[in-house]
């Protein structure tokens, strides 16, 4: 596979933060941040980058709380995105492993009980299968890229009126070849 074909280009300001403007296939991206800071939005942006080039993505969402309307709004092609709900924590590694064999990007919310050994095995499997593994939550081992959603500024809503209109995400990126910490709208 050519170097260019290994890259999943990510559109928008988030893509500009990433080395080479996207994510290399086979890499592991660990996303974290407090609730409401935008980590789900970033994960959906990466899934949208996958489905927009005609590839398949899967989201592992054990709580079943993913907002599909938001996914569609961000640009995820819902026809090419499988959402796996109600995953018991003990079967999480097996499920994610099976998905890594079949689709181009797996975005999975990490259960707190995940053992480092399982995590390492999954990262190796992603590398071998040239699949992107995006983890949401505390990832116990090293990752190719770490994205920290640090906070979000909302505009449009006033006291007693208005509507949420836009937000500015504050994302810090760590990893090889990363330029800096930056903010993206």
């Amino acid at each position: 596979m050519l170097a260019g074909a290994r890259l999943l280009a990510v559109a928008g300001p988030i893509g500009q933060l990433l080395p080479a403007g996207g994510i290399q296939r086979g890499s592991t991206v660990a996303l974290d941040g407090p609730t409401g800071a935008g980590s789900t939005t970033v994960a959906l942006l990466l899934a949208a980058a996958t489905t927009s080039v005609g590839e398949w993505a899967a989201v592992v969402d054990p709580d079943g709380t993913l907002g599909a309307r938001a996914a569609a709004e961000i640009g995820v092609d819902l026809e090419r995105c499988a959402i796996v709900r109600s995953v018991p924590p003990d079967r999480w590694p097996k499920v994610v492993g099976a998905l890594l064999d079949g689709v181009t990007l797996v975005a999975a919310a990490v259960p707190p009980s995940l053992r480092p050994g399982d995590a390492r095995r999954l990262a190796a499997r992603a590398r071998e299968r040239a699949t992107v593994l995006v983890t949401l939550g505390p990832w116990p081992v090293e990752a190719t890229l770490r994205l920290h959603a640090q906070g979000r500024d909302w505009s449009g809503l006033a006291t007693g009126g208005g509507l949420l209109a836009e937000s500015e995400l504050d994302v810090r990126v760590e990893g090889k070849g990363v330029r800096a910490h930056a903010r993206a709208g």
Partner: protein
Amino acid sequence: MSRTGCVWCPDWPVIAARKHADGLGTELRNRPLIVRERVGSRDIVRAASAEARATGVTRGMRRREAEARCPEAVCVDADEANEARTFEVVARAVEVFTPRVVLDRPGRCEFPTRGPSRYFGGDDALASQIRAGVATALGPDGADVRIGIADGVFVARLAARRSVVVPAGGSAEYVAPWPVSVLDDDELASLLVRLGLPTLGDVAALAPDAVLARFGRVGGRIHALSRGVDPGPSVFVAPPPDLVERTELDPPAERVDIAAFAAKELADRLLARCAERGLACTRVRVVAETEHGERLTRCWRHARSEYGDALTPSVLAERVRWQLDAWITTGETTAGITGLTLIPDEVVPADGRQLGFWGGDQVAHQRADRALARVQGMLGYDAVTTAVVQGGRTPAEQVRWVPWGEPREPELPLFVGPEVAAWPGALPPPFPARVFDPPLPAELLDANDDAIAVNGRGEQLCPPAYVRCRALPAGGGAVRAWAGPWAHDVRWWDVQAHRRCARWQLVVGADEAQRSGARGSHRVGADEAQRSGARGSHGDDVACIVVVEGGRAGVEAIYD
């Protein structure tokens, strides 16, 4: 529009089955015959002989019912390859008069008549000569052969049903009394009848833009067909001359299955190359060469090409297989086939219908399907889902979760009616990325730490000041901005589904006390202060939707 002739042999499956039975030495000639086929899980009648039809058996009827109506009938399985092979005799007889014969299914073929009509002395003379030629070719017990000549393929097919020549420009008049069922789309035809439009003339009388608005692109086509205008390919594209797929067979293929195997690969390759250029193929010329230097050629098209349906690899491969089978078994080839060529004869811009049939895409699709089926095996069928956006007011209502592999259809319509664009009271974008169904228990408090209440008119008595919920960072905090309450009183006519609730959209910050203590140290630096000053916020906003129903508050969604 070009004058087109159509040769149609009614009940071709029955005739082919009888001829086939003759070859095997069984006698089906004077007995009622039913040819059945499987469509999905249904076992239906594909064709019936005249004797069987006289007892009330019709096409598309369930086999069991047909057998009950005509118990003395012999029931045989459909064999499309045999039908195509038998029809080769007819195609060859027509080819004597014009080389440009196009087959669309066994039992029916079309040809342009302008040249041959002039040569043979008019449409009527041509029709009677071809009929005589075909009847001779079919032999003494020959089938009913009908020939129609008219403007365009669609009208020619209708003309063939009655064996008439429709004069140039007389199409609209000729098609008007035909029922809408001839449009070859049962669902659409039944809808048109229910709309009070039983004939093509009724459809043609409507304003074209009204039909287009109601049925979309298909509407434009059916309106054109109803006026007797054959829309043909929507946009004419000349097939690129280099878009030809050819393969050499070495050793030469003596048997159908070997040649057909090569044909399958060829069909895949041709359509994949068409797709690369954004084209779809509706008509293909099949050319075979033999060891003895014979060169045989025949043109096939999609049976529904007038609706813009294009050939798919499996459909094309099947047609090529039929054709090769016909050539080999009727002895037209005197030696093994050495070369096989597929030439696109008519291409249209691909409109995305073929998505999922492209080579590379299909491999990835199958791989994804296999993996997801494995996960379904591990966790249960319902655990792997895809989301379908549908109509509704709340973020949870607006999405339907469909198990992977089932048809993706919304349950609630996206639009309430033609005048109302969206659901009244629906949440506008941006949409929350986390949705809790049911809502997570929370407390919505006013400045005096009392729970917010909403009166009967949907008004709040005090503005919200604090939210507490375990899902929010630090367990909640002060309300920085808010809008609402939006009162919803939905489905009041249904005791079970009736809901009365009020919603707020909130931006929550950390508690004042916590902020001054824990965060003071790290929020230094000029740009931080400037930024928060300019925007009046602190970069740790959490936007959420809180619902109050029956005196209990809950967080329904978080914009994560």
